[in-house]
């Protein structure tokens, strides 16, 4: 039981009073930062770097890791209450979280998010502990062809995410993919759809689109419905979950946690893609899949467990390969280098205190997060009691401050407005927003991977079926598209 010995060693570091204090500071700061749209874990971590200069490396990483998973944990709050995702990884949480809040079940949605996050986080820590070195092999086995196949599989979720009209869902997804390729093309250095503006060279930030299409469009929509006064005072509702609800969610949470963890392990994929994959998987598996998007508890539980598990998973390539899989882990890597620790294949041997100390601190941090968040829910959810005029202004301010805080660019505010209007038009005409977001997050990686793979193979498309992982993923994608059609045909022929 070497892993347990290592963990005991890790706990001896994590439970040191100073480290305990830093875990607490980290997760507390992280939750708050996560709740505020725009102020994501990346900028928060950058702000922490000067603080970590004078800390012991283990303590420094414990603090920064706490901020990171704390932010993912806290990000669900504004997704659920305001339809304004706090961090990119919690966009999918708003699909069912916000409708639940609208139905007067905000308390329950927040509680589910907290429990699911806790379970997802814990499962990912167990994964980190037992199979991190092994998993680094999985991470490197994914090359361009495999990534492309994974993205194709992810995109088949469009079918389940477009509730009424598949055509409208596909249109939305393609618009999302088009938005994703704005900016400088990596493979040729060519500008695409930038209209000569340097602000668009790096592409359009995902959060600008998400906040525009979800939160701002919601504000516009409510304004249009204006005088009718459809809603009276919002209820927060009970936080308690019934036994049957717990049973109903157990399997989805477990599945999404594992899925999320593996997604997090892959560099470049991460919490956002993980939460979408978890959400669409559960929507397809659920018997009541058609109530997803209308306030289904599993629609909150699945993405929340997946994104927190993915956050833990993203530490695998960082710590075992020295490879950052995302902007946030790149900041972590930079901070570790500044503190004199070089993450990589030798880290477990060279700095076991940092490696095992951080993993053990994540257990502690997750418990802190749960204990910290649950009692606060009734107070935070009060925000819904605010008069509508106030609430709408609040969402507006959140969106604008959040978007401005991304790059301190007023150009992004114009983009926010544009996407708010696009979101409103889509909503008025029955175009679902989720496929657009899905196309946006998967599109860029899918296109890049496809072209990279073809460049490696010299233009030979067989690279996608020669590689076993890629072939299997593509077959699953084909199956998941084909099965419903076959099912329908069988039903038709029977009834005929």
């Amino acid at each position, binding site marked *: 039981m070497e892993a347990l010995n290592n963990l005991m060693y890790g706990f001896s570091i994590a439970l040191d009073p100073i480290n305990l204090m830093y875990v607490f500071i980290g997760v507390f700061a992280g939750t708050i930062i996560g709740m505020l749209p725009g102020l994501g874990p990346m900028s928060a971590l950058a702000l922490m*770097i000067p603080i970590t200069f004078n800390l012991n490396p283990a303590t420094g990483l414990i603090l920064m890791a706490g901020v990171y998973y704390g932010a993912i944990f806290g990000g669900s709050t504004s997704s659920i209450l305001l339809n304004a995702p706090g961090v990119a990884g919690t966009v999918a949480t708003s699909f069912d979280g916000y409708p639940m809040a609208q139905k007067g079940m905000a308390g329950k949605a927040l509680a589910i998010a907290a429990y699911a996050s806790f379970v997802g986080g814990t499962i990912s820590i167990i994964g980190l502990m037992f199979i991190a070195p092994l998993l680094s092999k999985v991470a*490197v086995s994914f090359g361009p062809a495999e990534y492309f196949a994974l993205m194709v599989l992810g995109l088949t979720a469009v079918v389940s995410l477009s509730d009424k009209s598949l055509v409208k869902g596909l249109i939305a997804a393609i618009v999302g993919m088009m938005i994703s390729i704005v900016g*400088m093309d990596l493979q040729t*250095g060519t500008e695409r759809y930038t209209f000569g503006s*340097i602000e668009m060279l790096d592409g359009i930030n995902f959060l600008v689109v998400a906040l525009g299409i979800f939160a701002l469009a919601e504000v516009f929509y409510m304004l249009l419905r204006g005088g009718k006064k459809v809603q009276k005072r919002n209820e927060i509702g009970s936080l308690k979950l019934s036994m049957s609800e717990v049973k109903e969610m157990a399997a989805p949470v477990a599945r999404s946690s594992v899925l999320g963890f593996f997604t997090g392990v892959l560099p470049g994929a991460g919490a956002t893609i993980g939460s979408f994959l978890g959400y669409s998987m559960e929507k397809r598996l659920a018997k009541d899949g058609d109530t997803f998007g209308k306030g289904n508890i599993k629609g909150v539980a699945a993405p929340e467990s997946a994104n927190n598990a993915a956050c833990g998973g993203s530490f695998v390539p960082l710590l075992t390969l020295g490879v950052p899989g995302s902007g946030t882990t*790149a900041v972590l890597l930079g901070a570790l280098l*500044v503190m004199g620790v*070089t993450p990589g*294949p030798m880290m477990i041997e060279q700095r076991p205190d940092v490696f095992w100390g951080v993993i053990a601190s994540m257990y502690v941090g997750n418990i802190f997060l749960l204990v910290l968040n649950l009692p606060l829910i009734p107070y935070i959810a009060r925000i819904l009691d605010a008069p509508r005029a106030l609430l709408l202004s609040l969402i507006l301010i959140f969106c604008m401050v959040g978007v401005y805080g991304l790059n301190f660019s007023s150009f992004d505010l114009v983009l926010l407005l544009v996407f708010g209007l696009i979101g409103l038009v889509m909503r008025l005409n029955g175009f679902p927003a989720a496929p657009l977001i899905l196309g946006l997050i998967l599109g860029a990686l899918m296109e890049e991977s496809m072209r990279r793979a073809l460049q490696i193979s010299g233009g030979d498309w067989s690279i996608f079926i020669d590689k076993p992982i890629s072939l299997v993923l593509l077959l699953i994608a084909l199956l998941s598209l084909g099965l419903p059609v076959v099912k329908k045909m069988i039903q038709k022929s029977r009834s005929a």
Partner: protein
Amino acid sequence: MKVNLSTPLKSLALIGAALTLTAGMAAQSVASDWKPSKAVEFIAPANPGGGWDTLVRTAANVIRTENLAEVNFAAINVPGGGGAVAWAQIARDNRNDHKLFATSPPIILVPLAGTSRFNHTDFTPVARLITDYSIVLVANDSPYQDINDLFAAIGENPRLSVGGGSAAGSMDHISIAGAAAAAGLNAASVNYIAFSGGGEAMTSLLGGHVEAVITGAGEAVAQLQGGDLRALGVSSPERIPGLDVPTYKEQGVDYTFDIWRGVMAPKDIPEEALRYYEDLFARMMETDDWKEATERLGWLDAYQNSEEFGAFLDGQLEQFRAVLGELGLLRN
């Protein structure tokens, strides 16, 4: 392979310090009474976490802990356009003598690729501080034993893939394409696969998806320690102390490539302000805190004062223009 960076780097840092000491004194003799009157904005033209950001934060921190200036140097991130967004902002603020920014080869490459209106001549070079070098890595079981094996294989098979962590036409691509040209190949014969970060390129190599990877020597140290990868050559003029990797030159390829980093200021700042900053950074590089930081980060001191740095940049422009031209990526 055993890599011990600490002691040899330290001795190198000492030599660097001796050099900077003389440079510093020279600068000091012309320094006047000009001093910043409020906090200096020290801009990293990118998101947190990258090379520019680390340089800005480390330098600002050393200036503070060593009490080198009476005012605070505030690290500010202005990401976008591979630097172009920040450059445009700074170019507009051409007289602001309380503004500095971190710089490196993209200040030349991005304008050449046609995506920035402003290039290095629109700013004042303050000082070159440090440098890193490119290193070519292959998997341990790769058939290529030295850089000539690799270039010979590329010559026969133009599909042979070499991954890098930046876009086509940017640093990693220029570095390897230039080396190939120096080895007698056409620069365009390198099948350069652009990944969106050095890390992704490295995982692709570890997984056997590309044949070789070009990256910064500093980033590669941990990977080389792990023993799954081998280095074929490094782009430095002489071997990097502590890193047992032969240079291109030793292997008969007459080519060097510096991943230099330095500091620039807006174009029209007063001469006295320029002298102040030039002197400040020279003094900063003599401090123990700075030496400790460079050792930790695997940087090599490469100080040049404002004038030398400016001349160096003009030379880089010609070198890069030639390689980009051969690659067909020259747009400006």
